[in-house]
C-alpha cells in the first residue's frame, strides 16, 4: 500500500476570474516529533481543506495523539511545520489556540465545579463575548440544562463527555480535534456522541478525529487516513473507500508496517 501523502484538494481548479483557492484549514509539512530517542511522528505531510471531516485510524503508538497535540499547540514539533488556518503552531501559538477546540478522553472539566461554572470559567479564559449566554445556549444544545447547577463529579461519563463537547465549542473554533472521543463510553453515550458529531458536520468547521473504532469512524467522515508508526500509509476520500472491505484494508496496512520493522 503506498502512501499518497499529500492529496490534491478535490474540486478546486484555477479559472480566470476566480480568486486563488481558500487557505487549507490544516497544513503539515515534514512533521517530526521525537520523545528522546523514540520518534512518534516521522516526517508527516497533511493538507486538509476547510469543512472536511477527517478520521485518522491507527494502532496504539502510531502517533495519533502526538499529531493532535502538535496541532493543539500542546507540544512543539522537533522538525517540520504545522499551520492551522494559516497560523504556525509554534510562532503564533495563541492565535492557533483561539481557533482550535479539543475533545479527548480527558474531559478537562473541574470535578468540584458545576457545569455552568466550568463553562463560564473557560469562556473567560477564551475571552468569549457574552460568555454566560453562550454557555447557557451550549448547555441547552447538549441537553444538560436541567443538571447545569450540579457538580461535574455527579455526572455520568457520557454527560461529562457532552459537557466537554460544549466546552470545546465555547469559542466557536474553526478546527475541532477529537482524540479518541468514544473511549469509555457505553452504547447509549456513544450513540449520543455520534449524533452530536453528526450535528457538527455542517461544513463550517474542519474536524479531525482519531479513533480505534473502524465502524463509527468511517461512517461519519469525508476522508479517512491510517497512521502507522508516525507516517500515513493510507489516505483517501470516503467515496473511494469500500466500507465493507475497510477492516481488511486496515489490518493489511498495519500488518505490513509491523512486518517492515
Amino acid at each position, binding site marked *: 500500500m*503506498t*502512501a499518497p501523502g499529500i492529496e490534491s484538494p478535490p474540486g478546486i481548479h484555477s479559472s480566470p476570474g476566480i480568486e486563488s483557492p481558500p487557505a487549507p484549514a490544516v497544513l503539515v509539512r515534514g512533521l517530526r516529533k*521525537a*520523545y*528522546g*530517542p523514540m*520518534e512518534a511522528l*516521522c*516526517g508527516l505531510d497533511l493538507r486538509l481543506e476547510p469543512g472536511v471531516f477527517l478520521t485518522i485510524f491507527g494502532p496504539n503508538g502510531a502517533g495519533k495523539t502526538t499529531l493532535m497535540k502538535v496541532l493543539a499547540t500542546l507540544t512543539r514539533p522537533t522538525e517540520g511545520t504545522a499551520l492551522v488556518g494559516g497560523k504556525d503552531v509554534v510562532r503564533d501559538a495563541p492565535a492557533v489556540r483561539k481557533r482550535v477546540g479539543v475533545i479527548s478522553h480527558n474531559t478537562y472539566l473541574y470535578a468540584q465545579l458545576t457545569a455552568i461554572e466550568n463553562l463560564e470559567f473557560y469562556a473567560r479564559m477564551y475571552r468569549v463575548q457574552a460568555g454566560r449566554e453562550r454557555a447557557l445556549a451550549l448547555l441547552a444544545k447538549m441537553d444538560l440544562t436541567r443538571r447545569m447547577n450540579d457538580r461535574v463529579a455527579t455526572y455520568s461519563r457520557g454527560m461529562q463527555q457532552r459537557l466537554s463537547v460544549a466546552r470545546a465549542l465555547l469559542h466557536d473554533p474553526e478546527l475541532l480535534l477529537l482524540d479518541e472521543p468514544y473511549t469509555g463510553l457505553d452504547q447509549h453515550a456513544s450513540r449520543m456522541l455520534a449524533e452530536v458529531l453528526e450535528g457538527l458536520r455542517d461544513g463550517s468547521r474542519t474536524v479531525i478525529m482519531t479513533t480505534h473504532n473502524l465502524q463509527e469512524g468511517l461512517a461519519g467522515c469525508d476522508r479517512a487516513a491510517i497512521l502507522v*508508526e508516525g*507516517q500515513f*500509509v493510507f489516505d483517501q476520500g470516503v467515496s473511494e473507500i469500500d466500507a465493507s472491505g475497510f477492516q481488511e484494508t486496515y489490518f493489511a496496512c498495519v500488518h505490513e508496517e509491523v512486518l*517492515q*520493522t
Partner: protein
Amino acid sequence: MKSGSKRRAYATSALVIVTFALILFALVEALVIAPREATMGDIQRLFYFHMPSAWIALGPAFTVVFGLSIAYLATGKMVYDRWAGASAEIGVIFTTITLMTGPIWAKPIWGVYWTWEPRLTTTLVLWFIYVGYLLLRSIAGEGPRRARLSAVYGIVGWIDVPIVFLSIWLWRTVHPRLLTGHGFDMDSRMVTALMISLAAFTLLYVTLLVLRAGTLDIAAEVTALQARLRRLDRRGGGR
C-alpha cells in the same frame, strides 16, 4: 576518524597530561615545599585542597551551569544541557570534598567540626541545591523536558546562592560570639602553594568537564545516528 575529532582527541589528551602534571606540582608544593604552619602543624596543609575545592564549588562549576541553562532556554540546543549536567556533577563532587575536608581540618585546630561560618554554611546549602538538581535530572527522564526543567532549577539555584550567603553573613554579624571564622596568617610561600593549587584545581575542573561532557556528546551522537538508521531502514522497506 575525521580530522576534526582527531584534533579534538589530541587536544583532550594534552589537556589531561598538563592537568596531571600541574596537580603533581601542586601536591609537592602543598605537602613538601610550603612551610609548616607555626601553630596548626601539618594538618593545615589540607587547606591547600579545601580552599580550591571551595573555590570551584562556589565559583565556576555552578556559574557554568547557570550560563549554560540560560543558553539552553534561549536556543534549545541539547549540547548546552549536556554540558550543564556534567558541570553540575563535577560541582557536586567538589562541594562534597569541601564539606568533608572542612571538618577534618577544623576539628584539630579549633576543636569543633563545624562552624556556621558564612562560606562553609553557604557551601552546605549549595550542596543541597545541586544535589537536588541532579536528583531532578535523574527522575526527569531524558530529552528536552529534562533539559528545560533542570535549566530552570539551574538558574533559580544560582541566583539564590548569593542571597543565602548574604543572609548567613548578616546572621553572623548579629551573633558574632557563636560563629567563628577561618583565619590565619599566610606567608608568601604558602600563598604560592595556594595559587598553584588553585590553578591545578581549576584546570582539573575543566579537564573533568571536557571528558565527562565529551562522553555525553558522543552518546548523543550515537543515539541520533541510530534514529537516522531506523528511519532510513523504514523508508527503504518498499513504501
